[in-house]
């Protein structure tokens, strides 16, 4: 359980996190979604007591991180990949952390095995790829078998197999009753991994919702339609203010009208429908929500 209340952080004159309040509950994967520079990493650093909030507070399991008796046994965090001395081996790095929190030496080899780094345990971290660095970061997070896990952009640098592995791991950890908080700037990735979402932009909370609700509330829905009379329906849709794109497989995608509006329209002109599927574009929904809150935008 993570509880943020009125959390704010300023870097000079820049407000990085602005009056942020949210809860992250155990037993589900909560996605922390926001464009780059929206304050996700800063928020995660504040949860782990690395950055000090300008105002507000955040607690883990009802305590400030600073007051946790055995921090690594309560909270595991992957904040940056490869933030490790390059001359140290993966095993030595984990051993250092284990000793600081009275974690058994055998657990080090256990987590190395779990993330698939056993073969390179004695290799210096400086020679690791970004993906291996991420796996080592995840191993460090799991070291104390903690009930709360924070992963900041865990799939960065991972290959497709690795991405799927992280996704499965997050769900498995949540299934064990742990609190799993995963940040990403990729909506599609979040939709596959998370059950709940905390969406922020420019450091402000935009939405705290379930993934299903988030998708349903999106106004950028399109409808996939298959009909034996495409031209007739196409004209009717255009007249009703919709837009039609013909798809290569013979179906068409309608935007600007809801699925029920398209169905009613087809019935009114006597055209039969073989398929009528609402399709939500998650990326669009995310863009729409954070549109007002994007810090950096390329010229259009």
């Amino acid at each position, binding site marked *: 359980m993570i509880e943020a209340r009125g959390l704010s952080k300023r870097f000079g004159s820049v407000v990085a996190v602005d009056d942020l309040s949210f809860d992250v509950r155990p037993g589900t994967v909560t996605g922390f979604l926001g464009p780059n520079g929206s304050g996700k990493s800063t928020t995660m*650093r504040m949860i782990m007591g690395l950055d000090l909030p300008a105002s507000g507070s955040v607690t883990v399991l009802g305590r400030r991180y600073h007051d946790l008796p055995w921090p690594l046994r309560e909270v595991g965090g992957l904040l940056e990949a490869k933030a490790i001395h390059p001359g140290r081996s993966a095993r030595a790095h984990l051993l250092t952390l284990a000793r600081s929190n009275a974690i058994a030496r055998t657990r080090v080899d256990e987590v190395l095995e779990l993330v698939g780094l056993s073969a390179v345990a004695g290799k210096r971290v400086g020679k690791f790829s970004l993906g291996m660095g991420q796996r080592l970061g995840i191993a460090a997070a799991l070291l104390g078998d903690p009930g709360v896990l924070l992963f900041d952009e865990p799939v960065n640098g991972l290959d497709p197999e690795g991405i799927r592995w992280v996704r499965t791991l997050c769900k498995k950890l949540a299934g064990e009753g742990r609190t799993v908080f995963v940040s990403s700037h990729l909506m599609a990735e979040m939709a596959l991994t998370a059950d709940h979402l905390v969406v922020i932009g420019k450091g402000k909370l935009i939405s705290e919702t379930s993934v299903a609700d988030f998708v349903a509330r999106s106004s950028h829905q399109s409808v996939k339609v298959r009909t034996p009379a495409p031209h007739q329906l196409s004209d009717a849709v255009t007249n009703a203010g919709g837009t039609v794109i013909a798809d290569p497989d013979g179906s068409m995608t309608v935007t600007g009208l809801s699925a029920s509006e398209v169905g009613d329209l087809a019935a009114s002109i006597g055209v039969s429908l073989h398929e009528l599927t609402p399709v939500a574009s998650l990326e669009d929904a995310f863009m729409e929500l954070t549109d007002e809150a994007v810090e950096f935008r390329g010229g259009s």
Partner: protein
Amino acid sequence: MTAVVEAPTSFEGERIPGRAGLRRAMAAEWTKLWSVRSTMWTLVATVVAVVGLCALGTGTVSSSEIIDDPTRRSLIGIFLGQLIFGVLGVLVMSAEYGTGTIRATLSAQPRRPVVLTAKVLVFGAVAVVVSEILSFSAFAVGQAILSAKHAVGSSAAAGHRAQQLGVKIPHNIQAFLSMGSASLGQPDVLRAVVGAGLYLVVLGLLALGLATIIRHTAGAISAFVGVVLVLPIIAQALPTSISNAVARYLPANIGLVMFSTHGLPDRIGPAFSPWAGFAILVLYAAVILGIGCWVLVRRDA
């Protein structure tokens, strides 16, 4: 048919009593120190360089040269050693910032003064052992070389020795007394050899404190070099009246007093006694480490 949705039970990890404290933090620092190759390399290089410089400093003495203080002569390599100990002390902290390991360290032990204390104690303990090995071997090698050369001591050295023994020696005879090499049994010699090692330890800790404040390796090393090498040069450039008042407070001059038995160079002016100087040096390191701790607690990691 009704689907039973089971509410996920909250995860319960293993509960153990107590809390992560200084002892655990020191164990972690110990592992950290010895799990990078550079630590051992640097320490071996230090011993080789300092003892080598001592052999050079004593080996080049000609048999007719007059040596004022054979103890100091053999320990002159300490001035090289202080730079290496400074770099080591800096790296204990700055390497954490340079590589980002500090985030992992502070996640494991969020009470930051505990982390700094663990670093001071572990590095300090290693430094004491290495620096004393260093100063005793430099002394042993240096004196062996000097006595093999039957080096000639100065009349001042002989006079000083006679004074310590409470013996009155006619001035014209002093010059014939050879005090060209020293042994640990002579007055002040053991103090000077032990002092040379302690001087290195305190400078290493001072460097650790500077790195805690500055956080960047290059910046912290520059500051350290400024304190031990540049300040004496500036002090010497000042008018004698000011220079005399300031010089004895400089770490390098305190060090020189600490590993001399007598006959200090004029540029130091009126110096503190070896142990008073040492106390001042410890105070410097404590103040710098105190400021370091204060900013460590207040700044974002």
